[in-house]
């Protein structure tokens, strides 16, 4: 009976399986789907438009009267003119500034507040957790619209009020999710391992646990972004929104008077602009969830 001869020299490296990180794999999956790529391009274009508009490179003349009041769409003005003879297209572009900034600020606020509260609650447990859970249970018991209106009411009108009221009402769902995940991860072996080599609270939380919950943050980000854009419309209708500059919300709100005169183009432009970007965010959010959710990775 011959002995087994263990020999490494003939081992062929090309048959090794390369392991891909979660992010690398996710990026690959995202870019392979046409709809997702289109959505990413759309979102990017909207941001670009907002930036260009903000810096005055385009649509800077939105406030100028360029024709007759309520002129219908024509080759010169694709979406016609509003009551003051201003170009609806320009107003829509300017409105993108409000939409993108509102979405961005709300999503960032939601991310910061939600992650912090959720992580602290989940990690430290005990009384701290009880207080935070009581707090967000209370918060979420109040219907979204009432809370939004109440906070916006207090803060008055204007952009800052819009940012704050939307941001302060959007963090609960993320907080719950993060708390749940942190609790699940807290007792996992790799965290105990970190403790064994002398890791402190901050280190464990930031270096070890948070990277594992980050996918939830990303997914929530896209959700909050589009919710904020749609909520801004409601705020504008209630007179609590942006003042002195066009926003899609104010354009849609104006339409309630215009429609009786058969003027539909402001409604159409704002609705269409919003539809495309919110749809893109929805598709992107779904694809992100499919790509980043570790449970789905095997399927």
């Amino acid at each position, binding site marked *: 009976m011959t002995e087994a001869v263990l020999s490494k020299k003939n081992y062929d490296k090309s048959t090794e399986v390369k392991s891909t990180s979660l992010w690398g794999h996710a990026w690959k999956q995202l870019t392979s789907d046409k709809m997702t790529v289109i959505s990413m391009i759309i979102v990017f274009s909207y941001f670009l438009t907002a930036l260009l508009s903000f810096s005055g490179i385009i649509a800077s003349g939105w406030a100028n009267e360029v024709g007759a009041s309520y002129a219908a769409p024509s080759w010169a003005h694709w979406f016609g003119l509003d009551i003051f003879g201003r170009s609806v297209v320009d107003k829509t572009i300017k409105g993108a500034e409000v939409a993108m900034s509102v979405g961005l600020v709300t999503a960032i606020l939601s991310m910061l507040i939600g992650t912090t509260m959720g992580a602290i609650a989940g990690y430290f447990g005990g009384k701290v957790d009880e207080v935070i859970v*009581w*707090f967000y*249970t*209370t*918060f979420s*018991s*109040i*219907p979204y*619209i*009432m*809370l939004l*209106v*109440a*906070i916006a*009411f*207090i803060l008055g009108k204007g952009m800052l009020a819009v940012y704050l009221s939307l941001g302060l009402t959007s963090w609960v769902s993320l907080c719950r999710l993060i708390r749940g995940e942190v609790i699940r991860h807290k007792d996992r072996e790799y965290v105990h391992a970190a403790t064994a080599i002398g890791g402190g609270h901050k280190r464990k939380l930031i270096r070890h646990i948070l990277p594992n919950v980050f996918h939830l943050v990303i997914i929530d980000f896209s959700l909050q972004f*589009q919710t904020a854009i*749609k909520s801004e*419309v*409601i705020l504008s*209708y*209630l*007179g609590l929104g942006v003042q002195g500059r066009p926003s899609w*919300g104010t354009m*849609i*709100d104006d*339409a*309630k008077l215009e*429609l*009786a005169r058969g003027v*539909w183009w402001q*409604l159409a432009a*704002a*609705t269409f602009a*919003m*539809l495309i970007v*919110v*749809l893109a965010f*929805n*598709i992107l959010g*779904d694809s992100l969830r499919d790509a980043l959710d570790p449970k789905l990775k095997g*399927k």
Partner: protein
Amino acid sequence: MNNYSYIIKRLLYVIPVILGVCLIIFILFNLVGGDPTQAMLGKHATLEQMRELRVELGLDKPLLSQYFDIVRSAFTFDFGRSWSTKQQISQMIKQGAVPSLTMTVPAFMISTVLAILISLVVAFFRGKFIDKAVVFICVSLMSISSLAYILFGQYFFAYKLGLFEISGYEEGFPLFIPYVILPILIWVVLSVGRDIRFYRTVLLDEVYQDYVRTGRAKGLSENTIMLKHVLKNALVPIITYVIIQIPFLILGALLLESFFGIPGLGGMTLNAINSSDFPVIKAVTILSSVAYILFSVLTDVLYTVADPRVRLK
């Protein structure tokens, strides 16, 4: 833990939450809310008049007693009088509840049944074209503002095509029907996208479970698997989702009622917002929060009944 002690514990937890809600309302309206007397009396109000009004409205009481007033109203449902209409708010609520319900209840039932049926079909044909098409349509429906739907619906179907009443309301069955059809349709369109997505996700979560494979290995047909095995498992989260929407039916749809002139609680709330009528706003907020909290307990309890894993010996 015993089933009953779980329910008791859950009900007891309601109290600190209600107290918390009152606290938030207190902070928002009594503390930070600013003095509404200026707005109510107009530009030329004297300080004396404003002081008098403040006493009349009970705004001069110590803060703690103001807080307790709110708490008391949460348990007794006596919300005092409206600042603008001077009516008893509890009376206003009773009057406004029925018109709201004539719209929201049928809308809710239609959209729920429709959404569940469509999502069963879509889950059955998962991955095929009809699945992807329906999901895309749902997502698109969710991407349009509710205000846009209302404006468009009202303009196009009621005004231009004259199919429905533009606005208004008549009490009594069946007189109110022509007035609520369009708002009901708009509500259905608004919620069906979001509902289908949720039900579909729940169903698909079940469809990939191991027991489905076992069912196939036993020789069951795909129909039986979907309608008996998958659906029963999916019912648990579905019931939770459906029940928790019920408290909001009473509130009515703020925008829909306002645009379609339906004299329900939603319109009442909107008017209160526009006229800074704090007591009404507070009352509606408290009412809907308490309803939501109680229904949350209900769904938790139903969960223990429906899911045998949670059910206790």
